[in-house]
């Protein structure tokens, strides 16, 4: 058995390995907080249905809708994720800070955590400038007007259909 051979070869390595395995099993069993490099690889394991509502970002540059199908995989992700993350960063970072402070307080590290280290100071204007620079770099022409909407869609009649009016993202501020 490999573990027995490992113990015979090097006791320190055996101990490190066994602790790592125990930690891996514990974090996966517990479900929730992880500790890199130990993660829970549970992507797409929860239930999904075709009737789940999808919120889709639509980006209008100089009044022209950006066609995601003309962009590479990485470019698409680089346009969609910042919008998704920026919309949630304030709430998300505060919630994570609160939870992690509680968790790390159990090992006396929590008191070292300061809220200002775990929150962003970025303004909507700074984000818009950064985002339009990304767009400019990707598209190869200047962005003079930028508007981003989020719209809810649902799958019906073998296609995604809008179910609500588009919502203009308030933190995008170029006109």
């Amino acid at each position, binding site marked *: 058995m*490999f573990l027995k*051979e*490992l113990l015979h*070869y090097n006791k320190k*390595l055996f101990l490190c390995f066994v602790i790592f*395995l125990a930690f*891996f099993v514990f974090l*996966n069993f517990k479900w*929730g907080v*992880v*500790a*890199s*490099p130990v*993660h829970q*690889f*549970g992507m*797409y*394991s*929860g*239930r*999904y*249905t*075709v009737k*789940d509502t*999808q919120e*889709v*970002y639509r980006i209008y540059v100089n009044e022209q809708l*950006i*066609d*995601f*199908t003309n962009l*590479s*995989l*990485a*470019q698409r*992700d*680089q346009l*969609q*994720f910042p919008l998704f*993350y*920026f919309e*949630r*960063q304030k709430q998300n*970072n505060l919630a*994570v800070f609160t*939870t*992690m402070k509680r968790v*790390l307080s159990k090992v006396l*590290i929590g008191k*070292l955590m300061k809220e200002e*280290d*775990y929150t962003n*100071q*970025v303004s909507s204007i700074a984000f818009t400038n*950064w985002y339009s620079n990304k767009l400019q*770099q990707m598209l190869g022409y200047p962005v003079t007007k930028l508007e981003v909407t989020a719209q809810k869609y649902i*799958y019906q009649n*073998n*296609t*995604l259909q809008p179910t609500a009016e588009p919502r203009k993202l308030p933190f995008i501020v170029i006109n």
Partner: protein
Amino acid sequence: MLLTNKHKKQFAWFYLLCFIVNYGWYFLNNLLLCQVNPVFFINKLDVTRNIVMLTSLQHLLIDSYWLRLVFDMLFLLLPLLLWFLVIKERKGFKTVAVVTSLICLVYGIYVSAFTHLSLELFVAWMLIPLVFYAASAKGFYYLLHCIRIIFILIFFTAGLWKIRAGGIFNMEQMSGILVEQHSEYLVSNSTNWFSQFVYFLVGHPAISYSLYLVGLIAELIFILGLFTRRFDTVLLVAFLFFLIADLFLMQINYFNWLVFAGLLYFSKYKLKEDVV
């Protein structure tokens, strides 16, 4: 065949090749820290990440281009240095192996805080350098197999999660995932061949569910690797299938993990003491 230092060097070459290709991919897609030029970060429920963030490095990285460049250079140069020390059998490889692993962890934490890339992608760059900590063929053998078992557990538990969270018991699962994963793409253009292909799968849940089931089986068979190395070639094929299928169908690039393939390839070599 017996495992020798020659195999350790071959693995070092494979590691270097995979790393250079991945670093090139980051560079071409403007995903290095100094190219991202971040203005905000997103935090996640990760103990290690939150301990590293005690340093406030996230704010320093946002403010300083030069610091971002230093991190990009460390992320590039340490694996190159590690490869050089292993190939030339020079001193210092143990320290460099550990430092490379730690820097890749910190780099991954911040890249995943500033971009869409997930920290899980960087796990390979954190773990594989530790294989080169070994000074002898025997040490290489044991470290290789320790990391191999961790890699096998990653895949096997991914399969278990699909059972535990209930995804596998839902016939609509893969159709639902495809709609979610490609919603922006489908809305942008519903008539091109890929959109039509996705819509076909979404509209035929039995077919799409079969793909999900095949994925689950490919993950669960990794449990064989915990008991024997005899099927490592099968696991290697399942792993490559996972990488290609994820890229094509899900449009997720998991090729950061390709370097893990070396674990399944070199596992066939034995120690002199006939340990297998």
